[in-house]
């Protein structure tokens, strides 16, 4: 991966985009990177469009601005494609990752002519299969780690397992489901 990666997350309040950005910062930190993970707060209500950001770098990060020209964009909720300019500033040599049940060909026309790589993942299907509930951020986290080549799959899964053991210490029964969601996402993003 490049020396400095910038990622922008688009989601709706309550979908866990902020949590996903913080988890990504967490797991990248575990591999020795300098990281930033932060949300941009607008109106505080469920369903409002929200943005979260990641900077991941080999060198110290000092900038405290939002990210306007990301290498990668993650769209947690595809309905945002119609209301938010998700590809704004997105680098052509970067990529956009979209959570959708539709085939990629149907999504591309909604990307305002974005020329870079487009990845899709059906996070709902994965989440329902692995967890029995709809938590899109876990599959999307694995997918962006793969797309942005943040780290290799084995390292990622190992770090996430240890993170889940810490996070879910009082409900270990959810760990395997989350691990399964991550593994499935790693395979199914394309």
């Amino acid at each position, binding site marked *: 991966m490049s020396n400095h990666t910038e990622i922008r997350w688009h989601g709706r309040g309550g979908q866990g985009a902020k949590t996903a950005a913080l988890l990504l910062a967490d797991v990248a930190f575990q591999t020795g990177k300098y990281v*930033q993970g932060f949300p941009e707060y607008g109106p505080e209500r469920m369903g409002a469009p929200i943005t979260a950001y990641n900077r991941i770098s080999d060198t110290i990060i000092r900038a*405290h601005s*939002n990210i306007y020209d990301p290498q990668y964009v993650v769209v947690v909720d595809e309905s945002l494609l119609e209301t938010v300019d998700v590809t704004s500033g997105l680098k052509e040599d970067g990529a956009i990752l979209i959570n959708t049940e539709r085939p990629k060909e149907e999504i591309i026309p909604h990307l305002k002519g974005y020329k870079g790589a487009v990845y899709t993942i059906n996070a709902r299907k994965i989440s329902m299969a692995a967890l029995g509930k709809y938590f899109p951020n876990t599959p999307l986290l694995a997918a962006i780690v793969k797309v942005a080549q943040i780290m290799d799959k084995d390292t990622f899964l190992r770090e996430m397992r240890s993170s889940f053991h810490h996070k879910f210490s009082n409900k270990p029964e959810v760990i395997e489901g989350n691990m399964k969601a991550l593994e499935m996402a790693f395979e199914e993003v394309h």
Partner: protein
Amino acid sequence: MARRDRLSGNEAVAEALRQINPDVFPAFPITPSTEIPQYFASFVANGKVDTEFIPVESEHSSMSAAIGASAAGARALTATSSCGLAFMWEELYIAASNRLPLALALVNRALSGPININCDHSDSMGARDSGWIQMYAENNQEAYDNMIQAFRISEHKDVKLPIMICQDGFITSHAVENIELLEDEEVRSFVGEYKPENYLLNPECPMSVGPYSVTDYYMEAKRNQAEGMKHAQQVVLDVANEFAGLSGRKYGLFEAYRLEDADRAVVMIGSAAGTTKDAIDRLREKGEKVGLLKIRLYRPFPAEAIAEALKNVKAIAIMDRAEGYSDHGGPLGADVMAALFRAKSTALATNIIYGLGGRDVRVEDMEQVFKDLQTMIVQNDAGDTYRYMGLRE
């Protein structure tokens, strides 16, 4: 041994407070500082600290309780933001005038109105004349380090004044970044035990606090209070020196970044300083002599040292993250310009209002500021006394 970790600014301050293990922490929640007492309450519930945590019904009460605790002889603090600070207004003056050492973890947020939850410095800037020491942070690391140094400064026998440890709401308070933490024992031995000379709960020598003062004494009392502020700069430096020995991280009254040979400088406070450093590095690569003076200690104001650090600069942009409504610029602008005047500076200086209510500051914005300073030099004209950055007009 330092521990590498990744924490938000609020987590970092809460972690510092866990390590300090203060005696009393009264708190009332308000965005974006709520997480500090929230995390701390979990430390209390899990037995990680011995602190008396007091949930109160307002910020007026949280500061009052902290004042009472401090007068009683306890090491006390609270946390707040914005309107919460405004609701403590009277108590801020009570704490300072009674020379009570205590701390306030302030997470800077715009004051109403319109109602806004995001960062600017209008809350703490309004409290700049309340007699509190004010320290600001660029990032989570500085917020943590300042919090650990806070009580040493506040409780110092030559100072005995309350201290406000400020960081930028959301921008640093809610951003997870890398951080180096000290070990618990290191922090506890650095901060030490609080041994007040006089305190209410001393049965050997009961104390009266909070006097009424008639005109005959009031002015002498205020001058006496100012004496603590006069000593604060040296104490801040001494504590920073000792802290550097412990942590390897050096702090002063301010940070001068690539300023030594700069012909243009920005003076500012808080998280946008990091963004400005990136702009400076970009411009330096093109051979431009630009630098930054980032204020750490704002009250007391190290006027002479700031003027000295800026003595070779030809043009200065003083950046205020608060409107002063003086029609003459913001508070930092007024302070820095007064310092420059006293030092007989001939630099061209302007005051820029920026970042109100969380308005973002980009590297490109700061490059433009340095470009504008260059124009000022070429035209030998500082232009308007104050102006806005990032404003739609």
